[in-house]
């Protein structure tokens, strides 16, 4: 993170880092409560991701714009207040859009308040950077979080219910792996994805070292 900041990253970098290099789910491993809990279907994962992304973008914007007038002693309480406000807003908006969705996400909407990703971005980024960068950071992290949730939700719905976004994939002969939509399935799927991403990162690091060795030789 520090070397990105020092190099004066472009706006695109700010946006992209949340999606790939610092993906909140697979790299930073933040906000695991909703990641494990509401990813039993792709729709729930998408809705939760979008709700979190909205809160993240809005709170980043407000935190960044008030960062000069909030003394540092009261910054955490101010940030939490701002975050809680937007979570309440999201709660009402989801109820207005679809009560069924609100029922499916249940208590987890209110729990966006305590998602450490949001306070983390407010504290580590938005309180130190301007509006534009904070917006891009929030958007990137929010997109990365949504994609992360979708990766889990997609796999869990395909294996656990034999469908994706409610569309049946395998026909009636498919015997769903019920465990995948239950809580343990969340852990299995997360472990699988983390394994995949870490394996990729290691393979990349290995090929880089061998490249360096070749150039030296």
């Amino acid at each position, binding site marked *: 993170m520090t070397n990105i900041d020092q190099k004066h990253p472009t706006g695109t970098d700010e946006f992209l880092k949340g999606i790939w290099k610092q993906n909140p789910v697979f790299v930073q491993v933040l906000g695991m409560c909703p990641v494990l809990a509401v990813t039993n279907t792709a729709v729930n994962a998408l809705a939760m991701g979008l709700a979190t992304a909205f809160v993240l973008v809005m709170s980043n914007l407000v935190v960044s714009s008030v960062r000069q*007038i909030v003394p540092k002693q009261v910054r955490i309480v*101010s940030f939490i207040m701002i975050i809680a*406000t937007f979570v309440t807003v999201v709660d009402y908006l989801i*109820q207005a859009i679809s009560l*069924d969705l609100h029922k499916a996400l*249940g*208590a987890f909407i209110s729990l966006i308040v305590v998602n450490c990703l949001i306070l983390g971005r407010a504290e580590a980024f938005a309180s130190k950077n301007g509006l534009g960068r904070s917006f891009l950071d929030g958007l990137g992290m929010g997109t990365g979080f949504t994609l992360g949730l979708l990766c889990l939700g997609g796999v869990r719905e395909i294996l656990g219910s034999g469908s994706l976004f409610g569309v049946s994939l395998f026909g009636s002969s498919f015997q769903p792996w019920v465990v995948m939509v239950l809580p343990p399935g969340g852990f299995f799927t997360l472990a699988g994805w983390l394994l995949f991403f870490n394996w990729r990162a290691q393979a990349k690091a290995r090929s880089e070292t061998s490249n360096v060795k070749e150039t030296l030789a």
Partner: protein
Amino acid sequence: MSDATDTTQMAHAADKAKIWPMYRAVVGLGFLCGFIIVGVYEGTKPIIQRNRIEMREQAIKDVLPGAVTTQAFMLNEQEQFVTVPSAQENGGLLFAGYDESDQLVGLAIEAQGMGYQDVVRLLYGYSFESETILGIRVLESRETPGLGDRIESDPVFLKNFGTLDVRLTSDGSSVANPIEFVKPGEKTDDWQIDGISGATITSRATATLLRESSTSWLPKVNAQKDAFLKGKRSP
């Protein structure tokens, strides 16, 4: 604050001078956040209310198979059932469902009780003809996803309804066999509700609230069954 060489007194004075900006920031943000919340609440209120009523309307038709029109009733101070406009959201209402030929299908009654996390509010369908509970639909619950919320989706649990016996005693003053909760797989009588393993508390709460609601409402609604029959025609 940051200067470690400050004496305590100076630090204290400096702290005092900083109280106003802190106060201003927190109170100012508090007001701003309050306005945002009130604005969004007021803006979405009519839509949410409409959604809730639509959802309830759907739930009534779900628990009363065959019903196409509904009429809301409430108990007035003289203990009489009177019709009220359906498009309101207060509690304590009963809904009569009628089929295409305006025949009474049954009553959908709202009931609530404490679940595992919070109050569970549900609607159950009652049939005068078979004297059974036809089905339930959860209107509001914050039960654990994947566990407690299975009272709505678990096929074995849902089999309890449809034939759930709530017959009245011959004088019509009380329910002959109040609904009982039994452990999963131990159901022997029609008035028992088979629990869900893994959601024992929520399924027991469902049985309890159904028992309480049915024992208090069913004698009353049966005594005034005619009010619901002609309810369709009265203004």
